């Protein structure tokens, strides 16, 4: 097939030209998709915030507070305010105790710490088992749900560990990790509550 001789000069030149063209076209596509990718990420975040806190009027992403949990995990707190008053906080929290990889969730708390709702942002748990966390802890069946519970009053650990929450069947580790993320989120929220109530509107 090759009509060009495999001399060093030819080989170098060919590869150089191919990689240069490849690099240029990738740069071009990157520029083209940069904005839509950022927009898709921002939209996902906005939707997650909207889902987990009561209706608000400000832009929670403006007042974002980035902290590090005692476990060394990056936590982001989004204050949701209505007419200047704090109505809830969406906490992007995570746990490194998952069955495989980190679990990242967005949990919404009312100012008193009651859980409004949550959304799982990223997880790599076992399909069909741990992945059920996406809806499991919202389902009002037995002691599954964590909604409307307050980590201050309720012991939000799985019943195997003496807590008040039923773990996902056959996925206790994933359930523990989920509740661990909720706890980390709650603690970061309580620690920074004053800062969130003040700050930019």
């Amino acid at each position, binding site marked *: *097939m*090759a*009509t*060009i*001789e*495999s*001399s060093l000069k*030819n*080989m170098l030149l*060919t*590869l150089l030209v*191919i*990689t240069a063209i*490849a690099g240029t*076209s*990738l740069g071009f*596509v*990157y520029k083209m*998709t940069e904005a*839509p*990718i950022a927009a*898709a*990420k921002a939209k*996902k975040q906005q939707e997650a915030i909207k889902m987990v806190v009561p209706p608000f009027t400000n832009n929670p992403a403006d007042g974002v507070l980035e902290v590090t949990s005692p476990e060394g995990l990056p936590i982001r707190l989004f204050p949701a305010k209505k007419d200047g008053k704090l109505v809830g906080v969406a906490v992007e929290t995570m746990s490194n105790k998952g069955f495989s990889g980190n679990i990242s969730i967005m949990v919404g708390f009312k100012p008193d710490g009651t859980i409004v709702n949550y959304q799982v942002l*990223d997880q790599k748990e*076992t*399909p*069909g*088992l741990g992945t059920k966390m996406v809806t499991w802890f919202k389902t009002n069946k037995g002691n599954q749900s964590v909604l409307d519970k307050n980590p201050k009053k309720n012991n939000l650990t799985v019943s195997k560990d003496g807590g008040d929450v039923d773990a996902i069947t056959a996925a206790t580790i994933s359930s523990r990790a989920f509740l661990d993320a909720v706890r980390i989120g709650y603690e970061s929220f309580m620690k920074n509550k004053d800062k969130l109530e003040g700050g930019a509107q």
Partner: protein
Amino acid sequence: MNQWKNFTKGFFKENAVFVLLLGMCPTLGVTSSAINGLGMGLATTFVLVMSNLVISLIKNLIPEKVRIPAFIVVIATFVTIVEMLMQAFTPALYSSLGLFIPLIVVNCIVLGRAEAFASKNSVGSSIVDGLGMGLGFAMALTMLGSVRELLGSGKLFNFTIYPEDYGMLVFVLAPGAFIALGYMIAIIDKMKKA
């Protein structure tokens, strides 16, 4: 070469998954649902068609000894383009396929077609070959995904067929992929002989 034969060989006679048994990693990894299989299949089809096109265009300009690195650069470029496009315009599909998209680079089907077909044939035949092979791969992945989704979680393309509680969990997990694939290969083989 008869273009119709060239196109259809990827579906049945030389189906990448059921007959050649190539590209098993994405096949077994992503087919936990029909839509994932279809998405992965179409992404691979795009890469196959584009890399076949480019490689058949430049086949006479590449010195024999560096053809493999040259092919890989071309393939990797298209995979990265697909990855960025999916991230931008189909973020939901991107997050469910995630890790498997970059792995298209090392999918043996793509390099295999480049080496075995595109580097020896005309541009037109190579595009048809890429399209046929890619769609055959997509078909196989969708079939496998459908079977696993239906048996495992009682759904088909996310429509509930029967309650999830009756699903056989094993089909969503890795062993189910092997079991379903094994039976499907057996059936295809039987049909081929008949």
